[in-house]
């Protein structure tokens, strides 16, 4: 039989000198050779001799026609980027740039021709890059960039106080007192400046019906100078206006607030606005996106001295409410700064608490929260950034893999080019250019992915001001840098490989030649992919479990559809010495609550109404309790004891179950025998060996016993992680502990509608009501679960992404291996191998890679998981179910991906396989 390559050699000899793109020439030669080959076989099948057949076919080959055809096919430009002499010499005036341009055109055409390959690579890169850019945007905002408009943010620190209370775990907080702030100001050697501020999220803007809560920042006069921020309009307030002895009611509006409320009116300076029923004069507008040193929106800034305070606010040491920021001098170390803070605090302390006196003060990074620690979402976003880097890595690994396989396929083409005189530099350049083009396309598509993903992530971190935009210059620079980096990464390896092809060998060997080194690299890439996919799947599983655990957590109260309303009254127009009038007003207000509660109870859209001075997730009251015959009440890790004065239908409204005894009823009134209900923890702690029912408990400053009539279930109070604490409930008719009560309402219908209706009704019923504060405990609960949701969504997204990419990678590798071994498989089948055995041979290859990856992935997950424990909820990082599901999914996907090529392997026709190549 005629060696097939004979026709190629013949055609090549006849057509070689045409100046067209070598790839086009190769294509034509291949197509014509195949035709001639088949024709020759047919002629011989009809009984012609080899020589006869050849002679006839050769006579039919018209060189001139074919040359013309090839020229036409190659297109009107007839450029030949990589042909002999095309390196510049053959084209007078064609410089390097022209060469590169031609290479780019050529690369583009090649990529467009291989559509599915290009589509996969671009998609993989887009997802990988997009994920990275999106997560970089989040990390950039939360961690790197810090608050906007702040000069030298790295020198700014938040002061955090750590105390060790007796019987309780150590506590950290960034809330300090004004007295402490003054004490820190005494030192000017360590600190270039000290300022204090506070952001309140429920300040009322406007009056009565039109009032709504806004975010108000209050700050000391030196705050803006310390931060180094400039207003866009007017000016900031100064220390003169923040004089405690002569405070000025001036306000600087936030940029967003100015835009939304006043349409960006440039004549705003000098106008007045109502904040918490005080009148403030607008003196300036803060720059766009300025949020102080925090990250949440601030609508209005006022001087600290100008907001209502208790009379001795400058000197008290026991009631912290201010956040203090210091700017350290450049030459000062953190240890020196910490020492100075603690020393200044202890020397200046004039309070009575030994625990507070011995507090340790430290200067912490500015992005720490007011709890004195890094926010969960910040810690999480750091992880997610790592995760997205892993996804990019997987995507890159896959693209490298595909490019490698492609380079292998193109060995012959590249060899032809080398043989035709193209330089190695030229070929490397072409391959790198192709990779760059791919990365560029991937990068562009990645920006779209980044937008979509970024929107999701931002939605899950709503308490950060994203108003300055998400995709900014830094982000675009980052994308570009990523894209180029990726191009280098995915371009260079295959390019090195491609250019090393020895023309002679490559032309002799078919596509069959694999090269042991490449096979090894490919396997390693596959294992890495599988391992990273498993890590991501484990992460997703852990967060999904956390979300589920949080959702399934028994809070002890049903927060959904629960709304609380707190009233703020206008100061009554009564002379201070008119005691009778004052008494009348007090009793009017006291009567107002139960009367209105009774009316609201009749509304069809309301399921329950009660009054309570303390409500979980809204407001807590701590107070003393005493058990006659016991010296002290043991301190519990959850703090407390907590006391709540509630109306009799409280338990029914919030759905806290009464486990034993009875609930309060209408009979528990003022003057009757005092009663109390305690939670399970209280029952267990106060009377460990006896039944609590019927026991005596002295609550707050009561004169005598309250009899325990019921035991209620434990409830969470502030956070989902709250530890057990003592909680006591008393009827508010008997002991009105705490503030004015709140209406606690359970809506039957849409919560927003009910909220609006009740608010309107309250304002209508009592014209002296100035503000109605609305709280929805459920929003707080949801907000607390948000980091886990964020983790679950992003990990899941990335995990599935990684899995798809890994599956496609496995598929292509197994396909490739089957192709490479077609001959061998054919021989095996010819020798009588069972189809199952052949299939297993191909499958086992993929399985081995996947299982190795799974084992490594599980080890990595368990190791990395330890650092993740504090970010999870009710879930151990070594959760066996999660690990098993992740591992199982990966193996299943690997089998599924390898199945098709393996199936094809068992059906290889031995005759054809032996003829193959």
């Amino acid at each position, binding site marked *: 039989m005629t060696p097939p390559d004979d026709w190629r050699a013949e055609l090549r000899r006849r057509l070689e000198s045409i100046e067209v793109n070598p790839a086009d020439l190769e294509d034509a030669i291949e197509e014509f050779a*195949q035709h001639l080959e088949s*024709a020759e076989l047919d002629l011989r099948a009809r009984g012609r001799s080899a020589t006869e057949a050849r002679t006839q*076919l050769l006579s039919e080959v018209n060189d001139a*026609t074919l040359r013309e*055809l090839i020229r*036409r096919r190659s297109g009107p430009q007839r450029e030949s980027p990589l042909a002999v002499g095309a390196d510049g010499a053959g084209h007078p005036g064609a410089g390097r740039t022209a060469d590169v341009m031609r290479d780019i055109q050529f690369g583009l055409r090649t990529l467009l021709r291989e559509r599915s390959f290009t589509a996969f690579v671009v998609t993989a890169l887009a997802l990988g890059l997009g994920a990275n850019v999106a997560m970089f945007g989040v990390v950039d905002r939360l961690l790197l960039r810090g608050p906007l408009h702040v000069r030298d943010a790295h020198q700014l620190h938040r002061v955090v106080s750590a105390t060790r209370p007796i019987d309780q775990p150590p506590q950290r907080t960034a809330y300090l007192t004004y007295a402490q702030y003054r004490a820190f100001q005494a030192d000017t050697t360590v600190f270039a400046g000290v300022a204090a501020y506070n952001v309140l999220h429920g300040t009322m803007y406007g009056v009565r019906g039109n009032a709504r809560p806004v975010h108000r920042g209050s700050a000391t006069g030196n705050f803006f100078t310390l931060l180094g921020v400039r207003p866009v309009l007017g000016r900031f307030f100064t220390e003169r206006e923040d004089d405690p002895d002569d405070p000025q009611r001036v306000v600087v509006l936030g940029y967003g607030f100015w835009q939304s409320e006043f349409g960006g009116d440039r004549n705003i300076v000098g106008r007045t606005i109502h904040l918490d029923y005080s009148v403030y004069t607008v003196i300036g507008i803060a720059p766009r996106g300025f949020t102080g040193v925090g990250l949440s929106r601030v609508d209005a800034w006022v001087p600290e001295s100008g907001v209502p305070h208790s009379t001795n606010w400058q000197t008290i040491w026991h009631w912290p409410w201010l956040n203090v920021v210091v700017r350290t001098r450049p030459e000062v170390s953190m240890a020196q700064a910490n020492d100075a803070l603690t020393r200044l605090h202890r020397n200046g302390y004039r309070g009575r608490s030994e625990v507070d006196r011995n507090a340790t003060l430290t200067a912490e990074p500015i992005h720490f929260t007011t709890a004195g620690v890094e926010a969960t979402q910040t810690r999480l976003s750091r992880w997610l950034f790592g995760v997205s880097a892993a996804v990019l890595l997987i995507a890159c690994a896959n693209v490298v893999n595909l490019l490698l396989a492609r380079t292998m396929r193109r060995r012959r083409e590249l060899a032809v080019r080398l043989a035709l005189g193209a330089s190695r530099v030229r070929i490397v350049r072409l391959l790198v250019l192709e990779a760059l083009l791919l990365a560029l396309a991937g990068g562009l598509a990645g920006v779209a992915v980044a937008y979509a993903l970024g929107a999701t992530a931002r939605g899950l971190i709503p308490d950060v001001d994203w108003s300055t935009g998400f995709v900014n210059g830094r982000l675009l620079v980052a994308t570009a840098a990523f894209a180029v980096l990726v191009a280098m990464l995915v371009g260079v390896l295959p390019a090195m490989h491609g250019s090393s092809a020895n023309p002679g060998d490559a032309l002799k060997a078919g596509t069959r030649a694999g090269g042991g080194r490449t096979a090894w690299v490919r396997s390693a890439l596959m294992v890495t992919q599988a391992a990273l996919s498993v890590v991501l799947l484990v992460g997703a599983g852990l967060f999904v479990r956390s979300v589920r655990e949080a959702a399934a957590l028994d809070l002890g109260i049903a927060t959904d559809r629960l709304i609380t309303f707190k009233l703020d009254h206008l100061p009554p127009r009564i002379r201070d010495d008119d005691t009778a009038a004052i008494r009348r007003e007090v009793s009017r207000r006291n009567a107002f609550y139960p009367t209105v509660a009774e009316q609201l109870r009749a509304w069809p859209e309301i399921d329950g109404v009660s009054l309570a001075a303390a409500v979980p997730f809204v407001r807590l009251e701590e107070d003393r309790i005493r058990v006659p015959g016991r010296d002290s009440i043991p301190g519990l890790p959850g703090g407390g004891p907590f006391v709540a004065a509630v109306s009799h239908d409280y338990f029914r409204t919030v759905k806290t179950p009464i486990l034993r005894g009875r609930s309060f009823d209408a009979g528990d009134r003022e003057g009757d025998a005092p009663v109390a209900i305690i939670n399970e923890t209280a029952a267990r702690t106060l009377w460990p060996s006896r039944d609590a029912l019927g026991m005596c408990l002295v609550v707050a400053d009561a004169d005598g016993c309250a009899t325990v009539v019921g035991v209620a279930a434990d409830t969470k109070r502030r956070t989902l992680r709250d530890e057990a604490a003592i909680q006591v409930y008393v009827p508010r008719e008997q002991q009105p502990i705490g503030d004015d009560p709140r209406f606690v309402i359970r809506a039957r219908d849409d919560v927003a509608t009910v909220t609006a209706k009740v608010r309107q009704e309250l304002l209508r019923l009592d014209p002296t009501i100035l503000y109605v504060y609305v709280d929805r405990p459920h929003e707080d609960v949801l907000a607390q679960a948000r980091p886990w949701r964020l983790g679950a969504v992003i990990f899941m997204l990335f995990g599935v992404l990684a899995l798809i990419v890994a599956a496609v990678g496995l598929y292509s590798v197994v396909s490739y291996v*089957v192709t490479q071994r077609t001959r061998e498989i054919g021989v095996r089948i010819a020798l009588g191998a069972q189809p199952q055995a052949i299939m297993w041979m191909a499958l086992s290859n993929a399985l081995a890679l996947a299982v190795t990856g799974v084992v490594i992935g599980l080890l990595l997950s368990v190791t990395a998981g330890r650092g993740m424990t504090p970010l999870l909820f009710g879930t151990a990082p070594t959760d066996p179910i999660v690990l098993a599901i992740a591992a199982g999914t990966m193996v299943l996907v690997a089998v599924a991906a390898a199945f098709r090529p393996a199936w094809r392997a068992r059906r290889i026709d031995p005759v054809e*396989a032996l003829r193959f190549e």
Partner: protein
Amino acid sequence: MLTAELKKGSAEFLILALLKHRARHGYELSKLIESRSRGTLSFNVSSLYPLLHRMEERGWIEGRWVEQLGERRRRFYSITRDGKKTLATQRESWREFVEAIALVSRLKRT
């Protein structure tokens, strides 16, 4: 033997018809044309591919390299939307032409 023009015209029609339902490579096309025309039409490398190229240029057919696993890459030709339209109109005019010829020749015979 057919005249060159008639051969070209009928070959184009035949190729479009052959590609109507599936893509084929060049040699397959030439063999099918030969057998369908009972040897009246035959093509070799130098005549078939220029024809295919012209048809490609007119946008009737489209040649594409297909790499299938276990097989060598081959250039397959498939019909385009324009090609399908052309086929339909050509089919119609050929039918009329053949009818006319049949009519004319029958008239002559009687």
